[in-house]
Every structure is written in structure tokens, then in C-alpha cells.
């Protein structure tokens, strides 16, 4: 072990300096569900099959929302959607403070019918830890 640890000392740390250095996700990573909302027909298949009951589809008024924190990224909804409007984004959602969770529904990566926005558009709102760690 002595030789091994001394080699570590010489060859330098193998730490990925997250959050200063962020490695891009693998293309096949299960990160989070995205929706191409205009295509959605509100059939509810995704919500019915979701094992974590993370998706709620409203028929009247029409809405589709997902609780990212409950989603287990199994990808089942993506597979069952008849119009293939759901997708899997390799980037993971950010952690969230409880207070924000209650006050700002966006963190649910929700897209409501009236403001048809993909979850993608919302990711900017979440605070990464870069700011925090820099402090």
C-alpha cells in the first residue's frame, strides 16, 4: 500500500472538481424527462404507467406536469407515449431547498397547458452549487 499511496501523491488527485468542472453527462444517461408539449395528446398513458406516480395529466383544463423529485427516471413513460412526445435528457435536475419547493412549482419541472413550455426552459431557474461553493 505504501507504494500505491506514494504514487497517488506524485500523480496528483483524481478528483473531478465539481462544481467548478462539470463533466458532461453520457448521452445515454437517465437524467430527466422532457416533453415536447405541443405534441402531447393528454392520453394519460404516461401517468397511468408511471411506477412512481410522478406524472399528472389533466384533461380539463389540459395540463401535464411532472414531479421531478418523485420521478425515478425509469423511462417507462417515454416508451409508452403513443406520440413519442416525451424524451430523456441526460442532464440531471438540480437539488432544491424545501422552501423553494413549496413556493416555486417550476422546480417540479412543470409545464402547464396555458404556458406550454418544455422543462428545458426552466432549468435556468434552478441554482446550481457553483455560486454556493464559490462563496
Amino acid at each position, binding site marked *: *500500500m505504501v507504494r*500505491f499511496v506514494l504514487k497517488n501523491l506524485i500523480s496528483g488527485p483524481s478528483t473531478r472538481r465539481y462544481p467548478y468542472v462539470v463533466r458532461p453527462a453520457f448521452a*445515454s444517461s437517465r437524467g430527466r424527462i422532457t416533453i415536447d408539449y405541443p405534441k402531447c395528446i393528454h392520453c394519460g398513458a404516461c401517468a397511468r*404507467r408511471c411506477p412512481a406516480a410522478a406524472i399528472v395529466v389533466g384533461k380539463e383544463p389540459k395540463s401535464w406536469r411532472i414531479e421531478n423529485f418523485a420521478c*425515478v427516471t425509469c423511462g417507462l413513460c417515454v416508451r409508452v407515449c403513443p406520440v413519442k412526445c416525451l424524451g430523456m435528457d441526460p442532464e440531471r435536475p438540480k437539488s432544491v431547498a424545501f422552501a423553494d419547493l413549496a413556493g416555486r412549482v417550476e422546480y417540479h419541472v412543470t409545464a402547464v397547458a396555458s404556458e406550454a413550455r418544455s422543462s428545458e426552459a426552466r432549468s435556468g431557474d434552478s441554482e446550481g452549487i457553483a455560486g454556493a461553493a464559490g462563496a
Partner: protein
Amino acid sequence: MSSGHEAREANAPSVIPFGPQHPVLPEPLHFDLLLQDEKVVGAVPQIGYIHRGLELLVEKRDYADYVHVAERICGICSFMHGMGYCEAVEGLLGVAVPDRARFLRTFWCELERAHSHLMWMGLAADAFGFESLFMATWRARELIIDVAEETAGGRVIFGSAIVGGVSKDPSDETLMRCMEALKPARDDIKKLSRVMLQDATVRHRLEGVGVISKEKAYELGAVGPMLRASGYDFDIRRRGYAAYGEVGFETALETAGDCMARAAIRIKEIEQSFSIMEQVVAKMPAGPVSLPIKGMPPVGECFARLEQPRGEVIYYVKSNGSRNLERFRVRTPTFANVPAMVEAMRGASLADVPTIILTIDPCISCTER
């Protein structure tokens, strides 16, 4: 009432609660430990902290979707849980998955075994206070995890097993590249194994500790490395499920039956996994990776048996012809190993308790479901 003073019987043992929150136990598990000095004279385990009752959930889920629950029986041997469930259901349905799916399953199984064993090695090192060994093994493990994420999409919950095949199809080049990326990990593991097996302090902690004889191990129903370390040749992969019939490997065997033997078995199996993965990648057939599964399962029942990192796992499914199965049951390896662990604990010293608990590589999550 209490005067603060405790009347004692002479030579009565100390009673201490060990767990459920205990840093050395990654999972909650409780023991009433009875100690004389530091010698363990009694250990009564209590489980149930992770019991979810997920077997019953099969009644509420579509039989094909349930695989996502099955995967989450455990985050360490997750892929094989998913796959084992699938094998059982496929047996019920009487379908054979495509060849490429069989090979990919084998690949992921072995990837999982390697990462599980490495994880174990790190945790064991940590349990006997060898922090840098823990760090080193887990660093090597990260490379394996990366391969998992790249090929299957998940780091620990691979999530690629589905009824009828697999859901991801990494290209042959990706697989080759991954095998290449694993090289440094393999080198590191070779060095670390030497430390694990030869370092004097490690040997002091492992040799002769928690010995289980071959007969006892067999008798008590031990499986996996626990059984093989006592010298009994038993490896369900020999049945040749998935692509195991088409790859060559030698069962790792040790005879001492102590913690060190179990460590040696796992170390051998890491290398074995790499070699199986290499063979699988080399022989990887082309073609589709899944079958479309439609309709209801027929009435019937089916057992499936797999070799998990911790030993033989038995899945059972029973269908009554509806979309929801009637019964799903999994007998996990740790469940089978518990009697042997309790046996191994007898007469150990307090410092050995974590080591012994860890050398069966317990997975409480699997055990309690």
C-alpha cells in the same frame, strides 16, 4: 425508583445496542450485542428497518412494468434483480430473448458483479479502518460505474432490463471502448488485491476470523462467495442462463472459510467478471435486443435462479392470467446467508463484528424487500 446504581450479577455480559444507525453498517440493522470484555457472547439481530413489502406491489402493477420496481429491490444488485424478474416472467410466457440481449445481459451482470465486489472491498476496508484502501477501491470502481452509465444509462440502477430483452443497445464500438477504459481499473485492482490479501494488518483482521466449515456452510444454506469460501463448488451461472453457457470461466474456490477466504473469492471474481465481459464483447452477436411483449401472461408459475454477486437468488412468479401477477417472490442471497453469519459471529470480538457482518456482504435491502 432508580438510584443510578445498577445491581449486577457477577460475570453478566454487557448489553449494547449495535445499530440501526451505525456508521459501519451502510444499512440499518440492529443487534443486541452481549459482550464479555470485547468478546461477543451473544448477538440477536433485528431487521425490518428497510422492509417495504414490495412483493405485494406486483398486484398493483402491470406485470411488465413491475421490472422497474424489481430493479429497486436493491441498488447494488439492481440489474440482476430486474433481469431475474424478467427471466422468470419470460419463463412464464415461454419466450426466449434475442441473442444480443442475452449477451448484453451477461455483460451487465458481470459489470454489476465487479462493481458490487469492489464496493464490498472498499466497505470492508473501511470497516477495519483502512481508509486509503477504501478510497482506492472506490476510485477504481468509478471507472466501472462510468461504463455502466455509458452503456446502460444509470450508475447504480442500470435500468436497462425489460421483459423481452434489454432497453439499451450500446454499439459494439462503445463496448470495445469501454473495455479499454476499464484497463486502468483492472491494473489498480490487481495491486489493491495484493494489499487486501497480503498486508500484515489486514491479515490480522481477516485471517481466522468468522470461520465457517464447509459442512456448516452447506448445512445452513449459505450461498455465493460465502459458500465457495468454505470450499463448496456452487455457482448457479453453471446452469448457463443468459450467455453463461457460451463463455468460459472457472469457479473461484477457497477452503479456509474465514473472512480472508471470502475476500479472496470476491477478488478472484472481480477478475473473472472482467474476463467474462471481454469474452462477451468479443462474441457479441448482432441483432435486435428485445422482443415485443404483448398480452396477458398465461396462468402458471415459474422459478428463475441467478447468481447474484452475493450468491444464488431465486425468483418466483405466479400468474392467474390477469395483467397483474398473483405472487412475486424473491429469495435473496443475503436472506440465505443470515444463519451462517450469525454462526460466524459466535465468539468473535467486538472489533470483528463489522468485519464479519461485512464479509457476508450483507444486503439488507435485498433481504427485507
